[in-house]
């Protein structure tokens, strides 16, 4: 048959899937040519992951057909997907932490009842794959001792070991440093050269533009468009995702910084395992200024926010409007921090910012529930709180605007708006805000960014922590980069770029001509040292 040569690697025809009343996928058709990188982009809940889960046999579609390499294929479970040559790299890795790389690779693909021969074969095969694709990983290391980037390589190796020629990657760069992401993209390009087909699921427009050949956009369970990447633009894709025009750049005036509001000196945190999380941090934030803290997750930013917010103890000095704040004991709790004029929008809003099972109106007063204005004798004035909550939700455009709905029933963006409304409307002098738009749709991102800028323009000090470099670059008036519990340096956003910040994030202060490869290796060496040190 002559058509076989041009048959698409994957063809989905009219896939539909509903979870109860929610239509996650509506009549989706897509065709991916072999040897290409195909991007799928869409907001949270647009149905990208559901579609890929159907392709990998996690869910069964209610309707529709799957064709793999020109053949109608049934995929009732992951075993069938693997047999059809599909490999999947999940956003949250599916690795056994205390197994070695080899053990993880053969798990489920063993050759016989005994392990020894399977391991020997995998070791050889791994060497071969490492040479062919530049995927070097020490086969005998435990997964928990590998960096995130290397863990991801193990996932890719797992798929290749199972002879996958179609590779699906779900939000692969969310956990990587910019340098690691670049390495991943080089590996993907290499895989493409070797004739593999790659599907890249992401919400980052830049990645789509950089690496894909074609891109499909999903919105509310439907495939709204499939276009050639070279014939589209980020603005057009954003509009297709959200369904209206979106401002990708934050619209803000130059900052007019006033007096110093927050001063931090020599801040040190040692966690319960004895690991030094903050190694003597010093910084200051002025009124009417946004200080952005950039860094890969886990380099001490969370601890910094927690100390300032009164969640974790520390040593050092914190001054708020010139007054020193206690760092341990009763005066270092969230309550007294709020009294000092510090509001905190925590990084993990579902665990620290909200009580998910409580209603929205209850969530709008947590932390401020002792305010005399909302008391009625020894009871709380619930009617007043609800009324106030309704007003806040209207002002912050929370949808649906029902204060009695439980927090868990709102989308990520609307949950964040509830937290923001609670913290901003109390008129703080300093706003701590961590990962303001994690898990938030593009449409809501625009709104949240605007609120932060408005607050700054009212003369408030803002400390912004984010792992999204784009967000740091577009919001901050000044940028500090954290690595390994230290501040590697401060930069002005108009005098730096992603590359320089990326190097600082990897712990490299100055490398005029070092290749990225070298930088990443250095970073791993540093992490190794750290581990040795803590043993």
């Amino acid at each position, binding site marked *: 048959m002559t058509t076989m040569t041009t048959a698409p690697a994957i063809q989905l025809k009219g896939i539909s899937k509903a979870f109860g009343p929610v239509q996650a996928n509506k009549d989706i058709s897509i065709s991916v040519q072999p040897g290409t990188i195909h991007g799928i982009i869409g907001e949270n809940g647009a149905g990208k992951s559901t579609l890929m889960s159907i392709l*990998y046999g996690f869910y069964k579609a209610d309707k529709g057909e799957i064709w793999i390499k020109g053949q109608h294929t049934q995929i009732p479970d*992951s075993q069938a997907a693997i047999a059809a040559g599909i490999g999947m790299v999940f956003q949250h890795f*599916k690795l*056994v932490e*205390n197994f070695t790389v080899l053990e993880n690779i053969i798990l489920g693909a063993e050759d016989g009842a005994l392990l020894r021969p399977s391991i020997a074969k995998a070791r050889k095969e791994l060497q071969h794959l490492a040479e062919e694709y530049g995927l070097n990983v020490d086969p005998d290391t435990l997964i928990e001792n590998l960096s995130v980037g290397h863990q991801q390589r193990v996932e890719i190796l797992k798929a290749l070991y199972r002879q996958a020629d179609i590779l699906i990657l779900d939000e692969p760069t969310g956990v990587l440093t910019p340098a690691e992401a670049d390495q991943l993209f080089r590996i993907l390009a290499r895989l493409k050269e070797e004739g593999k087909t790659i599907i890249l699921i992401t919400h980052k427009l830049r990645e789509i533009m950089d690496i894909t050949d074609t891109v499909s956009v999903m919105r509310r369970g439907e495939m709204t468009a499939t276009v050639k990447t070279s014939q589209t633009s980020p603005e057009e894709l954003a509009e297709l995702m959200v369904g209206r025009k979106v401002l990708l750049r934050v619209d803000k005036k130059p900052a007019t910084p006033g007096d110093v509001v927050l001063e931090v000196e020599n801040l040190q945190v040692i966690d319960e395992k004895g690991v030094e999380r903050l190694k003597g941090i010093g910084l200051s934030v002025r009124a009417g200024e946004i200080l952005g803290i950039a860094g890969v997750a886990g380099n001490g930013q969370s601890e910094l926010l927690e100390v300032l917010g009164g969640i974790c103890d520390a040593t050092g000095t914190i001054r708020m409007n010139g007054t020193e704040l206690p760092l341990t004991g009763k005066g270092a709790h969230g309550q007294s921090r709020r009294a000092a004029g510090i509001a905190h929008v925590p990084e993990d809003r579902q665990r620290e910012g909200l009580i998910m099972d409580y209603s929205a109106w209850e969530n709008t007063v947590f932390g401020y529930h002792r305010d005399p204005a909302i008391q009625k004798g020894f009871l709380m004035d619930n009617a007043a709180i609800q009324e106030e909550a309704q007003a806040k939700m209207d002002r912050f455009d929370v949808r649906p605007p029902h204060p009695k709905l439980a927090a868990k029933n709102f989308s990520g963006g609307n949950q964040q708006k509830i937290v923001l409304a609670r913290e901003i409307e109390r008129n703080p002098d300093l706003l701590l805000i961590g990962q303001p738009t994690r898990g938030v749709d593009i449409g809501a991102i625009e709104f949240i960014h605007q609120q932060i800028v408005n607050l700054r323009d009212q003369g408030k000090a803002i400390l912004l922590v984010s792992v999204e470099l784009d967000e740091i670059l577009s919001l901050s008036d000044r940028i500090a980069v954290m690595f390994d519990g230290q501040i590697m340096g401060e930069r002005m956003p108009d005098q730096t770029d992603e590359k320089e910040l990326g190097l600082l994030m990897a712990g490299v202060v100055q490398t005029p001509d070092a290749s990225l490869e070298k930088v990443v290796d250095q970073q791993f060496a540093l992490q190794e040292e750290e581990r040795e040190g803590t043993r």
Partner: protein
Amino acid sequence: MDFMTLLQVLDSTVRLATPLLLACLAGLYSERAGIFDIGLEGKMLAAAFFSAAVAYMSGSVWLGLLAGIGASVVLSILHGLASITFRGNQLISGVAINFLAAGMTVLVAQSWFAQGGRTPSLTGAARFDPITLPLAETLQNVPILGPIYHELISGHSILVYLAFLMVPGTWWLLYRTRFGLRLRAVGENPAAVDTAGVSVVALRYAAVLICGVLCGIAGAYLATALQAGFVKDMTAGRGFIALAALIFAKWRPWYALSACLLFGLLQAVALRYQNIDLGSFVIPVQVMDALPYILTVVILAGFVGRAIPPRAGGEPYVKER
């Protein structure tokens, strides 16, 4: 303490450690697969009763053993249904099994035998007899090694040897076979097993069934080898001590052997030295009887250090998007 007394205490240690070891390994299979099993006690108790009852009625200890295993496996499947298929709370299911076994055994015993909740005493072929290993008698007079072989190593029932052989067997199965790799993986990260195309449910049921079989042997040993017949609550917390030993052993087979021998030794000492006369003061027998349990608490609280349980333990597996 002379050499023979020492040997006798150690011999008694081996006998008392056997049910602990079997139950501990049973728990090891289950918990390594991510199913916490607080119902070891109940399964042993049910197995003890049914093995004694069937051995008495049929006159065959082997039929008794089968009945004991059968009873324990039925309870295991119940635990599996609750915690794997219906994704219930594993602790509650385990506690329920303990209560069920405690009540049911006595009730059925009273209804069948009318002897106040016990079975009649077992004799002859209805009990497991000690096995004399080859050359035990002839070597008896060799100094030191002779008595050790004759008193300590020889002269136990077949279930004792089975239990001790299960230790290397379990190690081999866990670390050298495909089944073991998958079993360990499913207790650490079931999603990894699932995405690799292996059934999480089937693996967990297999683990729970092995746990049932081993608990069954442990219970049968109590009623038909260590003692001659079933009495109310005869497991006396051994299922819980086995769980303690499992934590002490950090879920590893060889460590489990050491932990169970230690707990067995404590019980043996308590059995042998009932009243200790300190001249002006006599330590009462109750203190000695309580000692193994007290030491269990002390050891668990003080000497375990950081024991990391299987990471997915106690969590029902739900596929996520």
